[in-house]
Protein backbone atom coordinates (compact mmCIF):
# COMPACT_ATOMS: atom_id res chain seq x y z
CA UNK A 1 0.00 0.00 0.00
CA UNK A 2 1.66 3.22 -1.16
CA UNK A 3 1.23 6.68 0.34
CA UNK A 4 -1.16 7.78 -2.44
CA UNK A 5 -3.23 4.65 -1.73
CA UNK A 6 -3.51 5.70 1.88
CA UNK A 7 -4.52 9.20 0.84
CA UNK A 8 -7.22 7.83 -1.44
CA UNK A 9 -8.63 5.45 1.17
CA UNK A 10 -8.78 8.23 3.75
CA UNK A 11 -10.11 10.84 1.36
CA UNK A 12 -13.19 8.65 0.80
CA UNK A 13 -14.08 9.20 4.47
CA UNK A 14 -13.68 12.97 4.15
CA UNK A 15 -17.34 13.41 3.29
CA UNK A 16 -18.43 12.68 6.85
CA UNK A 17 -15.90 15.15 8.22
CA UNK A 18 -17.14 17.86 5.89
CA UNK A 19 -20.74 17.03 6.74
CA UNK A 20 -20.07 17.28 10.48
CA UNK A 21 -18.21 20.55 9.97
CA UNK A 22 -20.90 22.17 7.86
CA UNK A 23 -23.72 21.01 10.12
CA UNK A 24 -21.88 22.25 13.21
CA UNK A 25 -20.98 25.61 11.70
CA UNK A 26 -24.56 26.07 10.52
CA UNK A 27 -25.81 25.34 14.03
CA UNK A 28 -23.19 27.74 15.39
CA UNK A 29 -24.16 30.47 12.92
CA UNK A 30 -27.82 30.09 13.80
CA UNK A 31 -27.04 30.23 17.52
CA UNK A 32 -24.59 33.11 17.13
CA UNK A 33 -26.99 35.16 15.02
CA UNK A 34 -29.90 34.51 17.36
CA UNK A 35 -27.82 35.52 20.37
CA UNK A 36 -26.44 38.67 18.78
CA UNK A 37 -29.91 39.76 17.68
CA UNK A 38 -31.17 39.11 21.20
CA UNK A 39 -28.31 41.27 22.43
CA UNK A 40 -29.58 44.27 20.49
CA UNK A 41 -32.74 44.26 22.65
CA UNK A 42 -30.67 45.49 25.62
CA UNK A 43 -32.94 43.88 28.23
CA UNK A 44 -31.22 43.28 31.53
CA UNK A 45 -32.24 39.64 31.93
CA UNK A 46 -31.38 38.90 28.33
CA UNK A 47 -27.92 40.42 28.49
CA UNK A 48 -27.25 38.52 31.70
CA UNK A 49 -28.25 35.30 29.96
CA UNK A 50 -26.07 36.15 26.96
CA UNK A 51 -23.08 36.91 29.15
CA UNK A 52 -23.52 33.66 31.03
CA UNK A 53 -23.96 31.68 27.82
CA UNK A 54 -20.80 32.98 26.16
CA UNK A 55 -18.82 32.67 29.38
CA UNK A 56 -19.84 29.07 30.01
CA UNK A 57 -19.45 27.78 26.48
CA UNK A 58 -16.14 29.50 25.99
CA UNK A 59 -14.84 27.92 29.19
CA UNK A 60 -15.80 24.26 28.85
CA UNK A 61 -13.48 22.11 26.71
CA UNK A 62 -15.09 20.63 23.60
CA UNK A 63 -14.34 17.08 24.65
CA UNK A 64 -15.90 17.58 28.09
CA UNK A 65 -19.07 19.03 26.62
CA UNK A 66 -19.25 16.27 24.02
CA UNK A 67 -18.97 13.57 26.69
CA UNK A 68 -21.49 15.38 28.86
CA UNK A 69 -23.96 15.45 25.97
CA UNK A 70 -23.39 11.95 24.62
CA UNK A 71 -22.53 9.89 27.70
CA UNK A 72 -24.00 12.11 30.40
CA UNK A 73 -27.44 13.08 29.18
CA UNK A 74 -28.73 9.49 28.93
CA UNK A 75 -28.39 9.43 32.74
CA UNK A 76 -31.19 12.03 32.75
CA UNK A 77 -33.16 9.94 30.29
CA UNK A 78 -32.17 12.01 27.25
CA UNK A 79 -30.70 9.96 24.43
CA UNK A 80 -29.05 11.74 21.54
CA UNK A 81 -27.47 10.20 18.45
CA UNK A 82 -23.69 10.54 17.99
CA UNK A 83 -24.13 12.87 15.03
CA UNK A 84 -26.53 15.20 16.84
CA UNK A 85 -24.25 15.13 19.89
CA UNK A 86 -21.20 16.42 18.05
CA UNK A 87 -23.23 18.97 16.07
CA UNK A 88 -24.93 20.18 19.24
CA UNK A 89 -21.61 20.40 21.09
CA UNK A 90 -19.73 22.24 18.39
CA UNK A 91 -22.78 24.36 17.57
CA UNK A 92 -23.22 25.52 21.18
CA UNK A 93 -19.53 26.36 21.51
CA UNK A 94 -19.00 28.03 18.15
CA UNK A 95 -22.29 29.86 18.69
CA UNK A 96 -20.74 31.52 21.74
CA UNK A 97 -17.69 32.64 19.77
CA UNK A 98 -19.68 33.70 16.72
CA UNK A 99 -22.07 35.74 18.89
CA UNK A 100 -19.04 37.70 20.10
CA UNK A 101 -17.78 38.16 16.55
CA UNK A 102 -21.19 39.39 15.37
CA UNK A 103 -21.55 41.66 18.38
CA UNK A 104 -18.18 43.26 17.61
CA UNK A 105 -19.05 43.69 13.92
CA UNK A 106 -22.43 45.16 14.80
CA UNK A 107 -20.80 47.74 17.02
CA UNK A 108 -18.91 48.86 13.91
CA UNK A 109 -22.05 49.68 11.91
CA UNK A 110 -22.39 53.45 11.58
CA UNK A 111 -24.85 54.97 14.06
CA UNK A 112 -25.77 57.70 11.63
CA UNK A 113 -26.73 55.14 9.02
CA UNK A 114 -29.06 53.48 11.49
CA UNK A 115 -30.48 56.86 12.41
CA UNK A 116 -30.99 57.71 8.74
CA UNK A 117 -32.80 54.41 8.21
CA UNK A 118 -35.05 55.03 11.21
CA UNK A 119 -35.70 58.56 10.02
CA UNK A 120 -36.82 57.19 6.67
CA UNK A 121 -39.50 55.25 8.49
CA UNK A 122 -38.05 51.75 8.80
CA UNK A 123 -39.00 49.71 11.83
CA UNK A 124 -36.47 47.90 13.99
CA UNK A 125 -36.75 44.68 12.03
CA UNK A 126 -36.22 46.44 8.72
CA UNK A 127 -33.27 48.40 10.06
CA UNK A 128 -31.68 45.16 11.14
CA UNK A 129 -32.42 43.27 7.91
CA UNK A 130 -31.50 45.97 5.41
CA UNK A 131 -28.84 48.06 7.17
CA UNK A 132 -27.19 46.30 10.10
CA UNK A 133 -27.11 42.70 8.92
CA UNK A 134 -25.53 43.21 5.47
CA UNK A 135 -22.70 45.32 6.91
CA UNK A 136 -22.19 43.22 10.01
CA UNK A 137 -22.07 39.98 8.04
CA UNK A 138 -19.38 41.22 5.68
CA UNK A 139 -17.24 42.56 8.50
CA UNK A 140 -17.51 39.21 10.32
CA UNK A 141 -16.01 37.17 7.51
CA UNK A 142 -12.45 36.84 8.90
CA UNK A 143 -13.89 35.86 12.28
CA UNK A 144 -16.21 33.33 10.65
CA UNK A 145 -13.34 31.77 8.72
CA UNK A 146 -11.42 31.40 11.99
CA UNK A 147 -14.40 29.82 13.68
CA UNK A 148 -14.96 27.49 10.77
CA UNK A 149 -11.34 26.37 10.98
CA UNK A 150 -11.67 25.77 14.70
CA UNK A 151 -14.76 23.62 14.18
CA UNK A 152 -13.08 21.65 11.40
CA UNK A 153 -10.16 20.97 13.71
CA UNK A 154 -12.43 19.70 16.49
CA UNK A 155 -14.35 17.29 14.24
CA UNK A 156 -11.88 14.43 14.84
CA UNK A 157 -13.39 14.24 18.35
CA UNK A 158 -16.42 12.72 16.63
CA UNK A 159 -14.61 9.39 16.58
CA UNK A 160 -14.87 9.22 20.38
CA UNK A 161 -18.65 8.88 20.07
CA UNK A 162 -18.39 6.43 17.19
CA UNK A 163 -18.96 8.53 14.09
CA UNK A 164 -17.15 7.01 11.08
CA UNK A 165 -15.33 10.18 9.92
CA UNK A 166 -11.74 10.21 8.69
CA UNK A 167 -10.10 10.13 12.09
CA UNK A 168 -11.88 6.88 12.83
CA UNK A 169 -11.02 5.48 9.40
CA UNK A 170 -7.38 6.41 9.96
CA UNK A 171 -7.33 4.76 13.36
CA UNK A 172 -8.75 1.47 12.16
CA UNK A 173 -6.43 1.53 9.14
CA UNK A 174 -3.49 2.15 11.47
CA UNK A 175 -4.47 -0.75 13.68
CA UNK A 176 -4.78 -3.04 10.65
CA UNK A 177 -1.62 -2.05 8.81
CA UNK A 178 0.59 -0.82 11.68
CA UNK A 179 1.66 2.08 9.50
CA UNK A 180 0.50 4.93 11.71
CA UNK A 181 3.25 7.27 10.58
CA UNK A 182 2.16 7.47 6.94
CA UNK A 183 -1.50 7.24 7.81
CA UNK A 184 -1.57 10.14 10.27
CA UNK A 185 0.66 12.16 7.99
CA UNK A 186 -1.79 11.57 5.14
CA UNK A 187 -4.62 12.49 7.51
CA UNK A 188 -2.93 15.79 8.36
CA UNK A 189 -2.51 16.57 4.69
CA UNK A 190 -6.17 15.80 3.96
CA UNK A 191 -7.33 18.11 6.75
CA UNK A 192 -5.03 20.79 5.40
CA UNK A 193 -6.46 20.39 1.90
CA UNK A 194 -10.03 20.64 3.24
CA UNK A 195 -9.00 23.73 5.20
CA UNK A 196 -7.37 25.42 2.19
CA UNK A 197 -10.30 24.60 -0.11
CA UNK A 198 -12.79 26.12 2.29
CA UNK A 199 -10.69 29.21 2.89
CA UNK A 200 -10.38 29.69 -0.85
CA UNK A 201 -14.13 29.26 -1.27
CA UNK A 202 -14.86 31.86 1.42
CA UNK A 203 -12.33 34.27 -0.06
CA UNK A 204 -13.90 33.99 -3.52
CA UNK A 205 -17.35 34.56 -2.09
CA UNK A 206 -16.10 37.48 -0.04
CA UNK A 207 -14.49 39.07 -3.12
CA UNK A 208 -17.60 38.51 -5.19
CA UNK A 209 -19.86 40.26 -2.68
CA UNK A 210 -17.35 42.84 -1.56
CA UNK A 211 -18.47 46.46 -1.46
CA UNK A 212 -15.77 49.11 -1.83
CA UNK A 213 -15.00 50.62 1.55
CA UNK A 214 -16.70 47.83 3.45
CA UNK A 215 -13.97 45.20 3.40
CA UNK A 216 -12.67 43.92 6.73
CA UNK A 217 -8.92 44.44 7.18
Amino acid at each position, binding site marked *: MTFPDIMIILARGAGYTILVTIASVSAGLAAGLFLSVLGTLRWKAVSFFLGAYTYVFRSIPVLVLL*FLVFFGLPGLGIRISPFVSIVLTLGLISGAYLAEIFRGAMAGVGQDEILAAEASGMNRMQVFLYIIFPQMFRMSIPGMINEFTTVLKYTPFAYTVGIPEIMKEAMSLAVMTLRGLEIYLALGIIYFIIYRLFVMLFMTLEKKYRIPGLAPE
Partner: protein
Amino acid sequence: MDPFINDLIVYWPQLLAGLERTLILMVIVSLTGLAGGVCVFYLTLVKSSILHKWTEAYISFFIGTPLLVHLFLMYYGLPQLGIRLSALTVAVIGFTLNVSAYNARYLATAYNGLDKEELEAARAQGFKHSETFRLIILPQVMRLSVPSLTNQVIQNLKDTSVAFLIQYHDLFAQIQEIASSNFHFFKAYMTAALVYLALVSIVVLAARRFERFISLPGFETH
Protein backbone atom coordinates in the same frame (compact mmCIF):
# COMPACT_ATOMS: atom_id res chain seq x y z
CA MET B 1 -24.37 11.63 51.51
CA ASP B 2 -24.66 11.44 47.74
CA PRO B 3 -22.69 8.38 46.66
CA PHE B 4 -21.06 10.38 43.87
CA ILE B 5 -19.68 12.96 46.31
CA ASN B 6 -18.46 10.08 48.40
CA ASP B 7 -16.61 8.70 45.37
CA LEU B 8 -15.07 12.10 44.73
CA ILE B 9 -13.68 12.06 48.26
CA VAL B 10 -12.39 8.51 47.89
CA TYR B 11 -10.71 9.35 44.58
CA TRP B 12 -9.47 12.74 45.84
CA PRO B 13 -5.71 11.98 45.65
CA GLN B 14 -6.10 10.75 42.07
CA LEU B 15 -8.12 13.80 41.11
CA LEU B 16 -5.47 16.07 42.58
CA ALA B 17 -2.74 14.24 40.68
CA GLY B 18 -4.78 14.67 37.50
CA LEU B 19 -5.32 18.36 38.18
CA GLU B 20 -1.60 18.74 38.71
CA ARG B 21 -0.86 17.09 35.34
CA THR B 22 -3.41 19.33 33.62
CA LEU B 23 -1.85 22.44 35.13
CA ILE B 24 1.71 21.29 34.40
CA LEU B 25 0.87 20.70 30.75
CA MET B 26 -0.91 24.04 30.50
CA VAL B 27 1.93 26.00 32.09
CA ILE B 28 4.65 24.30 30.05
CA VAL B 29 2.96 24.73 26.69
CA SER B 30 1.92 28.28 27.46
CA LEU B 31 5.56 29.17 28.08
CA THR B 32 7.06 27.15 25.22
CA GLY B 33 4.26 28.31 22.93
CA LEU B 34 5.00 31.94 23.76
CA ALA B 35 8.74 31.51 23.22
CA GLY B 36 8.09 29.57 20.01
CA GLY B 37 5.59 32.17 18.85
CA VAL B 38 8.14 34.95 19.31
CA CYS B 39 10.75 32.96 17.33
CA VAL B 40 8.35 32.18 14.49
CA PHE B 41 7.21 35.80 14.45
CA TYR B 42 10.85 36.88 14.18
CA LEU B 43 11.25 34.59 11.17
CA THR B 44 8.22 36.14 9.46
CA LEU B 45 10.09 39.47 9.49
CA VAL B 46 13.23 38.10 7.89
CA LYS B 47 13.83 39.46 4.40
CA SER B 48 14.90 36.14 2.83
CA SER B 49 11.94 35.13 0.71
CA ILE B 50 12.50 31.36 1.02
CA LEU B 51 12.57 31.45 4.80
CA HIS B 52 9.56 33.74 4.70
CA LYS B 53 7.60 31.24 2.61
CA TRP B 54 8.51 28.33 4.85
CA THR B 55 7.50 30.25 7.94
CA GLU B 56 4.16 31.16 6.40
CA ALA B 57 3.66 27.54 5.36
CA TYR B 58 4.45 26.38 8.89
CA ILE B 59 1.93 28.77 10.43
CA SER B 60 -0.72 27.92 7.88
CA PHE B 61 -0.23 24.16 8.28
CA PHE B 62 -0.51 24.17 12.05
CA ILE B 63 -3.47 26.51 12.01
CA GLY B 64 -5.18 24.39 9.37
CA THR B 65 -4.76 20.89 10.82
CA PRO B 66 -6.09 19.34 14.04
CA LEU B 67 -3.83 19.08 17.07
CA LEU B 68 -5.17 15.58 17.64
CA VAL B 69 -3.69 14.41 14.33
CA HIS B 70 -0.26 15.72 15.31
CA LEU B 71 -0.52 14.02 18.69
CA PHE B 72 -1.55 10.70 17.12
CA LEU B 73 1.17 11.01 14.50
CA MET B 74 3.81 11.27 17.19
CA TYR B 75 2.26 8.95 19.77
CA TYR B 76 1.09 6.13 17.50
CA GLY B 77 3.15 6.84 14.37
CA LEU B 78 6.70 7.40 15.59
CA PRO B 79 7.09 4.01 17.34
CA GLN B 80 7.14 2.63 13.78
CA LEU B 81 10.60 4.23 13.52
CA GLY B 82 11.54 2.94 16.94
CA ILE B 83 10.94 6.31 18.58
CA ARG B 84 8.80 5.98 21.70
CA LEU B 85 7.95 9.23 23.44
CA SER B 86 6.00 9.60 26.65
CA ALA B 87 2.49 11.05 26.46
CA LEU B 88 3.69 14.23 28.18
CA THR B 89 6.56 14.67 25.72
CA VAL B 90 4.28 14.18 22.75
CA ALA B 91 1.74 16.59 24.19
CA VAL B 92 4.38 19.24 24.89
CA ILE B 93 5.85 18.99 21.38
CA GLY B 94 2.47 18.90 19.65
CA PHE B 95 0.98 21.78 21.65
CA THR B 96 4.13 23.88 21.30
CA LEU B 97 4.13 23.58 17.51
CA ASN B 98 0.44 24.51 17.39
CA VAL B 99 0.42 27.27 19.94
CA SER B 100 3.56 28.84 18.44
CA ALA B 101 1.83 29.11 15.09
CA TYR B 102 -1.16 30.87 16.64
CA ASN B 103 0.91 33.19 18.81
CA ALA B 104 3.12 34.09 15.84
CA ARG B 105 0.00 35.04 13.92
CA TYR B 106 -1.27 37.28 16.74
CA LEU B 107 2.10 39.01 16.99
CA ALA B 108 2.26 39.47 13.21
CA THR B 109 -1.20 41.02 13.22
CA ALA B 110 -0.14 43.48 15.90
CA TYR B 111 3.04 44.20 13.95
CA ASN B 112 1.03 45.20 10.88
CA GLY B 113 -0.59 47.89 12.98
CA LEU B 114 2.70 49.40 14.15
CA ASP B 115 3.86 52.80 12.96
CA LYS B 116 6.47 51.95 10.33
CA GLU B 117 8.07 55.41 10.61
CA GLU B 118 8.98 54.48 14.16
CA LEU B 119 10.89 51.44 12.94
CA GLU B 120 12.59 53.61 10.35
CA ALA B 121 13.57 55.95 13.19
CA ALA B 122 15.23 53.05 14.97
CA ARG B 123 17.17 52.16 11.84
CA ALA B 124 18.09 55.81 11.35
CA GLN B 125 19.47 55.90 14.89
CA GLY B 126 21.77 53.02 14.01
CA PHE B 127 20.04 50.08 15.68
CA LYS B 128 20.73 46.62 14.28
CA HIS B 129 17.83 44.55 13.00
CA SER B 130 17.96 42.34 16.08
CA GLU B 131 18.09 45.34 18.41
CA THR B 132 15.11 46.97 16.72
CA PHE B 133 13.24 43.70 17.16
CA ARG B 134 14.12 43.31 20.82
CA LEU B 135 13.92 46.94 21.94
CA ILE B 136 11.19 48.43 19.77
CA ILE B 137 9.06 45.82 18.01
CA LEU B 138 8.69 43.12 20.64
CA PRO B 139 7.75 45.33 23.63
CA GLN B 140 5.02 46.91 21.52
CA VAL B 141 3.54 43.88 19.76
CA MET B 142 3.54 41.89 23.00
CA ARG B 143 1.55 44.61 24.74
CA LEU B 144 -0.84 44.97 21.82
CA SER B 145 -1.38 41.19 21.64
CA VAL B 146 -1.95 40.63 25.34
CA PRO B 147 -5.67 39.88 24.91
CA SER B 148 -4.98 37.31 22.17
CA LEU B 149 -2.04 35.81 24.01
CA THR B 150 -3.96 35.38 27.26
CA ASN B 151 -6.90 33.97 25.32
CA GLN B 152 -4.49 31.43 23.95
CA VAL B 153 -3.51 30.44 27.50
CA ILE B 154 -7.20 29.79 28.22
CA GLN B 155 -7.42 27.81 25.00
CA ASN B 156 -4.37 25.80 26.11
CA LEU B 157 -5.97 25.01 29.43
CA LYS B 158 -9.11 23.69 27.76
CA ASP B 159 -7.22 21.82 25.06
CA THR B 160 -5.09 19.91 27.58
CA SER B 161 -8.18 17.69 27.93
CA VAL B 162 -7.33 16.33 24.47
CA ALA B 163 -4.17 14.76 25.87
CA PHE B 164 -6.15 12.03 27.60
CA LEU B 165 -6.77 10.56 24.14
CA ILE B 166 -3.03 9.72 24.05
CA GLN B 167 -3.13 8.21 27.55
CA TYR B 168 -2.00 11.29 29.45
CA HIS B 169 -3.61 10.97 32.88
CA ASP B 170 -4.82 14.51 33.24
CA LEU B 171 -7.80 15.71 35.25
CA PHE B 172 -10.30 14.68 32.60
CA ALA B 173 -8.81 11.19 32.36
CA GLN B 174 -9.20 10.76 36.13
CA ILE B 175 -12.79 11.94 36.10
CA GLN B 176 -13.48 9.49 33.27
CA GLU B 177 -12.09 6.74 35.40
CA ILE B 178 -14.38 7.57 38.29
CA ALA B 179 -17.32 7.69 35.90
CA SER B 180 -16.57 4.31 34.42
CA SER B 181 -16.33 2.75 37.87
CA ASN B 182 -19.57 4.13 39.32
CA PHE B 183 -21.52 4.85 36.10
CA HIS B 184 -22.54 8.36 37.25
CA PHE B 185 -21.59 9.76 33.85
CA PHE B 186 -23.71 12.88 33.98
CA LYS B 187 -22.47 13.91 37.41
CA ALA B 188 -18.89 13.12 36.50
CA TYR B 189 -18.84 15.19 33.31
CA MET B 190 -20.79 17.96 34.99
CA THR B 191 -18.09 18.02 37.66
CA ALA B 192 -15.42 18.17 34.96
CA ALA B 193 -17.21 21.05 33.26
CA LEU B 194 -17.48 22.98 36.54
CA VAL B 195 -13.82 22.42 37.38
CA TYR B 196 -12.72 23.71 33.96
CA LEU B 197 -15.08 26.65 34.35
CA ALA B 198 -13.45 27.48 37.68
CA LEU B 199 -9.93 27.08 36.31
CA VAL B 200 -10.69 29.27 33.30
CA SER B 201 -12.16 31.90 35.63
CA ILE B 202 -8.94 31.97 37.62
CA VAL B 203 -6.89 32.41 34.45
CA VAL B 204 -9.24 35.15 33.24
CA LEU B 205 -8.85 37.06 36.50
CA ALA B 206 -5.08 36.64 36.45
CA ALA B 207 -4.96 37.77 32.81
CA ARG B 208 -6.94 40.93 33.66
CA ARG B 209 -4.50 41.84 36.41
CA PHE B 210 -1.57 41.15 34.14
CA GLU B 211 -3.08 43.32 31.41
CA ARG B 212 -3.42 46.19 33.84
CA PHE B 213 0.08 45.58 35.12
CA ILE B 214 1.84 45.92 31.77
CA SER B 215 -0.50 48.45 30.20
CA LEU B 216 1.01 51.82 29.23
CA PRO B 217 -0.57 55.08 28.06
CA GLY B 218 -1.31 54.50 24.38
CA PHE B 219 -1.43 50.70 24.80
CA GLU B 220 -4.77 50.29 26.52
CA THR B 221 -6.27 47.06 25.27
CA HIS B 222 -9.71 47.44 26.84
